[in-house]
């Protein structure tokens, strides 16, 4: 009797053990399944994100607004571009948590490790949508507080910093016109990317968008004034030896259109060919010849 009891106990034990293992297997399979489904849902939420910005915007407004407001509580602080970037990311994080978090709960049994993992992947996937999201949240909050917010790049204290305000970001939306603050911001950004410290030694120089306008103004003056004015005009490339640069880039703006002139100075050895002037115009709208005449003086 005792032995049979022991036997049954051990049998029960082994059964129990087996069941546990089964369960565990099942769980693992479950987890795997849910992971798969989670991966499967990724593409959908991403679509939803895009749509949600325009179509579903109203339904989700409440929760979204909340998360954005919490992440955009930085309006009063000095907004440097760095903080803007990181906030943008955190905003996207908030956003994905808000929308996708609910999705997860409905489809997948909550298991923390899985969820945590999923969140990470979601954020990575969301990187593309970041701009859209920031745009969207600006629309929502601008009326109250963002109107006067300004971003200084590279920093507020830099004497050559570029200032853009939140309205300027609107111009990055599809089918809208680019504004000069954005252009100048990007020029500055390119310059700093290429040469963080030694501006003088880099082999190209980009003028800002107002240079060409000024050049035209200068050229329209009388001959007698030109000499003295040219001295003043040279301030525009103060501290930069233009003729030692390999390339000089001049953005051109005319008639609601942007184009670019690149002046290439060949190496001093083969001086036979003078500087080459290239004019890049996406719409072929500007009269290249006029531009060339202006630039070659």
């Amino acid at each position, binding site marked *: 009797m005792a032995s049979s009891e022991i036997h049954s106990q051990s049998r029960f034990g082994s059964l129990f053990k087996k069941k546990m293992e089964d369960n565990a297997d099942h769980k693992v399979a479950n987890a795997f399944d849910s992971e798969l489904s989670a991966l499967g849902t990724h593409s959908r939420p991403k679509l939803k994100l895009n749509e949600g910005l325009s179509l579903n915007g109203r339904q989700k407004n409440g929760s979204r607004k909340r998360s954005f407001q919490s992440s955009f509580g930085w309006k009063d602080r000095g907004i440097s571009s760095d903080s803007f970037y990181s906030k943008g990311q955190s905003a996207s994080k908030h956003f994905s948590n808000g929308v996708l978090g609910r999705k997860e709960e409905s489809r997948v049994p909550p298991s923390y490790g899985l969820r945590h993992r999923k969140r990470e992947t979601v954020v990575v996937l969301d990187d593309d949508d970041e701009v859209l999201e920031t745009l969207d949240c600006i629309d929502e909050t601008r009326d109250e507080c963002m109107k006067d917010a300004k971003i200084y790049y590279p920093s507020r204290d830099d004497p050559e910093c570029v200032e853009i305000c939140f309205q300027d970001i609107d111009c990055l939306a599809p089918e809208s016109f680019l504004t*000069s603050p954005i252009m100048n911001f990007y020029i500055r950004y390119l310059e700093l990317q290429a040469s963080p410290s030694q501006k003088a030694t880099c082999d190209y120089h980009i003028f800002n968008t*107002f240079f060409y*306008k*000024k050049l035209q103004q200068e050229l329209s003056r009388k001959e007698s004034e030109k000499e003295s004015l040219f001295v003043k005009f040279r301030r525009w490339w*103060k501290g930069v030896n233009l003729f030692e640069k390999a390339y000089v880039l001049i953005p051109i703006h005319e008639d609601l259109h942007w184009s670019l002139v690149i002046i290439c100075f060949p190496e001093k050895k083969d001086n036979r060919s003078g500087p080459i002037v290239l004019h890049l115009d996406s719409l072929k709208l500007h009269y290249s010849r006029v531009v060339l005449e202006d630039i070659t003086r």
Partner: protein
Amino acid sequence: MDQEPTHKFIHVKVVGQVSSLGGELEVFFRIKESTPLWKLMAAYCRRIGMYEVQDFAFIFDQRLLRPHQTPKQVHMEDGDVIDALLNQTGS
């Protein structure tokens, strides 16, 4: 120097390009070195009409002037010229 340096006045000229009216518009200002430049910008826009401060890029020494800066901060001196160029939009 018996005069307080912060109360020194300088004379600057703002040169604009308002092509639709023909020619350039020059406006002369007398401004304290410690006065933030937005006062000058606002005054210029009032004089020109038609435009608001955001429409202009005020450039001095190849740098964009920011409204809260003072002439002293950007080392503006008597007789200096500020360019007021319209912000550009385009595709």
